C-alpha cells in the first residue's frame, strides 16, 4: 500500500510539480493539495495522511501556525516543511515538532536532489 501525502503550498504551479514528483518518483499517493494553512489543517483532519508537506509563507494562515495546530491535535503527525525562507523560521518549526525541512528551490530533475529527498523521507519515517 502506498504512503499518503497532503501537499500545501500557495503556488499552484509548484503544487503540480510536487504532486507529479511524489506520485511518479517517490511512489506516494497524493490524497489532497491545499493553497493555505487553513486548508492544510482541514485536509490533515480529513485525510490524516502519512505525511504533510507545508510551505511556510502562505496567505490566510502561514505554515508555522498550521504546523502548531496540526501537532496540537495530532502529535504524531509527520510534517515536512518546504520553504524558500531559511534560518530562524525553519528552526522554530523544527522545535515545534516538524520532522524535517527542504529549502526551495527544488532541483527535481537532479539525481543528487532525488537522493537527498529520498534520504529525508527515510529519516522522517524512521523517527
Amino acid at each position, binding site marked *: 500500500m502506498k504512503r499518503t501525502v497532503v501537499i500545501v503550498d500557495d503556488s499552484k*504551479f*509548484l503544487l503540480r510539480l510536487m504532486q507529479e514528483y511524489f506520485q511518479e518518483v517517490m511512489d506516494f499517493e497524493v490524497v489532497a493539495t491545499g493553497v493555505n494553512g487553513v486548508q492544510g489543517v482541514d485536509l490533515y483532519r480529513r485525510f490524516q495522511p502519512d505525511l504533510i508537506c507545508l510551505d511556510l*509563507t502562505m496567505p490566510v494562515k502561514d505554515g508555522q501556525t498550521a504546523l502548531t495546530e496540526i501537532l496540537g491535535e495530532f502529535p504524531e503527525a509527520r510534517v515536512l516543511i518546504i520553504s*524558500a525562507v531559511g534560518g530562524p523560521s525553519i528552526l522554530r518549526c523544527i522545535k515545534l515538532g516538524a520532522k524535517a525541512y527542504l529549502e526551495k*528551490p527544488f532541483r527535481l530533475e537532479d539525481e543528487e536532489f532525488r537522493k537527498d529527498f529520498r534520504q529525508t523521507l527515510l529519516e522522517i519515517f524512521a523517527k
Partner: protein
Amino acid sequence: MLHSSQDERTRDSIQDVAAEFEVCARRAVECLLNRPTLLSKAFRLRKPSAVESGIRCFIASGNSDQTLMISLGLSKSDLRSLFPDEKDEEMGLDAIGEMVNIIAGTLFRRPGFRSRFDRLRTSVPSFAAPSFEMEQARIVRGVLKVGEAHLILELAVKPCNCGGKA
C-alpha cells in the same frame, strides 16, 4: 532628501549583492523551469527607470532601516513562450510569482546579503504595483534569457526615512 552618506551606504550595499542576486535569480528560474538561463544584460547598478514589461511581479520587504523590492518583468508573449503547453495563463503567472518568492527567500538567507541588509520581513508576491518611490531607490537590474524569453530582474533598496513605504 537622502543624506549623501546614507545614500552611498545603500549604493555600496546593493552593488555588493548584485552578484548574489544574479545567482539566486538564475537558480530559481532554472530550477522551476528546468531550463538553462543566459545572461542577456549584466546585473549591475542602474538608474531608476520605468520597466516596460507588460507583466511584472513584485515582492516587497523591509526592516526598520530600509525598504526593499524584488521584481520580475516580462512580456505576455514571453510568458507564453516560457509555458507553450500551458492553456491556463494563470498557471504561468503563478510560476512567475513562485520564482520571485524563491529569489527573495534564497537571497535573504545568504550570509553576504544579511551582513549588509540584516533581517527582513517578507510578503507574498503580487502583480499589483507597490507604492515604492523608485526615483529615490538604488537599483540593481539584469536581464536573463530563457529560450526566446527575456526576464527583467530588479532589486531596489532605499532607506526608510526617505518617505514612502514598500
